[in-house]
């Protein structure tokens, strides 16, 4: 480690976290990927194409918006980083554009991906369509059933969606199945991991592809205010939008806050472990079997967390708090009714944190990453709030 959120050492460690715990059959592939990424990321031609694609296609830079009515409600100056306005409706597009361009550069013709809520699957299918690559997305059978709209979107984009029937049939099992299938298809296939997780170089590479969030927000905030914000807040499942956001502010005095779902708080409630190729924190039973996460937001329904977050927590540079499903539902309505923005349930964790911590942030400036839009969650929210039958009042 040279500095916080810099390049990891050759072993891919952030302190004790991270590493590369994969079967020998995958080792040459992740070593090759690391070399390819290192080379591409310092190549101006690759950086140029990545940046140009994000601008012309994905709608970057996204706005940093001063949410005045929300600010008045919570007693702080709240700026929203509008990743919900990026193409496909969430920050996931930043990462997949980067990985798809890298895959093509490596001569791969096919992408595979895991997905929980379907946002990363949709983003992967989108990037594959854009670059003329094949795509296959692994999705737990349980998630296929509860995120049917995104399953349809992926198929419409030309991707194959493979329901995963092993284990708990959710996101963690989709990761297992994607890794299994990758081993048998290394020649032509790149595994496009959707968060800052997995074996080295993924946690680092995905953070770098997402740091555009934080870099833009920092520039935008400095331009508006002349000095960095007091607080920077983002939701954390695997933690990619938070890692990308924090990367832009880690060397400022801003206090960094990751918001975990209470039912999937790997940092808040997990213990150290080694799963999915990385050393980090995981929800586990007393024997080291991985437990399922249970969150209202499928995108945060992951029992682990990216290793760099485990490190930032351990060294105290970022703090990780928890928000319950009920608080999330309140926050979705609050943002919708004060700002006219329907955000994703994932992102609503960060909004709920503002409400929960009003006293602490009173009068301060806060940048909140709004990681995605809420259309995909309409059914879930309606079912919980009863709007389908009612008159619109919760």
């Amino acid at each position, binding site marked *: 480690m040279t500095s916080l959120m810099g390049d990891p050492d050759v*072993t891919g460690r952030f302190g004790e976290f991270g*590493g*590369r*715990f*994969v*079967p*020998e*059959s995958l*080792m*040459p*592939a992740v070593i090759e990927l690391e070399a390819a990424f290192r080379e591409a990321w310092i190549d101006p031609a690759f950086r140029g194409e990545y940046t140009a694609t994000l601008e012309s296609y994905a709608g970057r830079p996204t706005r940093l918006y001063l949410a005045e009515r929300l600010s008045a409600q919570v007693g702080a100056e709240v700026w929203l980083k509008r990743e919900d306005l990026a193409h496909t409706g969430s920050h996931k597009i930043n990462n997949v554009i980067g990985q798809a361009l890298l895959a093509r550069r490596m001569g791969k013709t096919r992408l595979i991906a895991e997905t929980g809520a379907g946002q990363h699957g949709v983003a992967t299918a989108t990037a594959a369509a854009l670059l003329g690559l094949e795509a296959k997305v692994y999705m737990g059978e349980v998630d296929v059933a509860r995120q049917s709209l995104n399953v349809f979107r992926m198929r419409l984009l030309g991707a194959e969606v493979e329901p995963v029937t*092993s*284990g708990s049939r959710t996101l*963690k*099992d989709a*990761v*297992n199945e994607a*890794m*299994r299938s990758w*081993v*048998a298809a*290394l020649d032509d296939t790149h595994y496009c991991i959707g968060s800052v997780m997995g074996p080295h170089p993924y946690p680092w590479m995905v953070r770098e592809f997402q740091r555009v969030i934080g870099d833009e927000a920092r520039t935008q905030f400095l331009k508006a205010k002349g000095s960095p914000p007091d607080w920077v807040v983002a939701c954390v499942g695997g933690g990619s939008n938070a890692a990308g956001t924090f990367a832009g502010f880690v060397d400022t005095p801003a206090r960094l806050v990751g918001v975990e779902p209470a039912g999937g708080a790997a940092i808040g409630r997990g*213990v*150290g*472990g*080694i*799963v*999915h*190729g990385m050393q980090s924190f*995981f929800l*586990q039973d007393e*024997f*080291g*079997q*991985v437990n399922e996460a249970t969150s209202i937001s499928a995108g945060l329904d992951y029992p682990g967390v990216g290793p760099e977050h485990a490190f930032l927590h351990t060294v105290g540079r970022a703090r990780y708090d928890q928000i319950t499903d009920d608080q999330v539902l309140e926050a979705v309505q609050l943002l919708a009714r004060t700002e006219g923005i329907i955000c994703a349930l994932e992102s609503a964790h960060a909004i709920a944190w503002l409400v929960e911590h009003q006293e602490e942030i009173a009068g301060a400036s806060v940048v909140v990453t709004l990681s995605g839009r809420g259309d995909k969650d309409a059914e879930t929210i309606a079912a919980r709030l009863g709007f389908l039958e009612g008159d619109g009042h919760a």
Partner: protein
Amino acid sequence: MLEATLQALRAKGRHLLVPYLMAGLDPDWLSYVDLVIERGADAVEIGIPFSDPSMDGPVIQRAGEMALARGVTPLSVLAELGSRSFPVPLIVMTYYNIFHHMGEERAVRQLRSAGVQGVIIPDLPLEEGGRWRDLATKEQLDTVQLFSPATPDERIDEILAVAQGFVYGVGLMGVTGERAELAATATTMATRMRPRTSLPVLIGIGISSGDQAAAVIRAGADGVVVGSALLRRVLDNQSPQQIALFIDELRGALDTTEP
């Protein structure tokens, strides 16, 4: 001890058979261990179930899920193994989180006191396994290394420098499971590994029949590891006689094939 036992058998010209069984998949699972030993297994690989077996195909996944559903734990498996003695070496296969969670030093002690002589940890590659190997070596617990068809020659030699027990040559690029045809990579692995090491060379993953076992022996292997093809028969509720016939098929092929 594992290594010495296998080397001694090999010196006598015997080809080695290491069947894999999932611990605790039914209450009577140790009877399968006894059965395969009785029919000529030279060592037995025992799987401890893990919630996220990312290197295993459908058969071993299902066996693991059954075992976990029965409440099997790493400690219950080791207690069962430790309550008995076995005439051949036992090798435990599981994912690293199980041992990491127990604490590596405690895991090594518990494995040894249960009589286990070797371990296979598929998600603990060369670069990450230094501390584990030091602790295990101190207690004479052999850590078996895996070699894959994708492993470059220089890397093979690096891994061989820390290899113990035997060389586990992965027969194909993929997860555990039966295959109708032997992958070309299985015989290639045997041929590649044979001149590079004095350790016994066993090929596993995708070895599903006596004919396939014979083919890798002819290519230079000293033996085979057979998992899914055996476990599938157990999961299909085949009788002990039918399972014995399958082990006999493998044993017969190994005993009658010349390298």
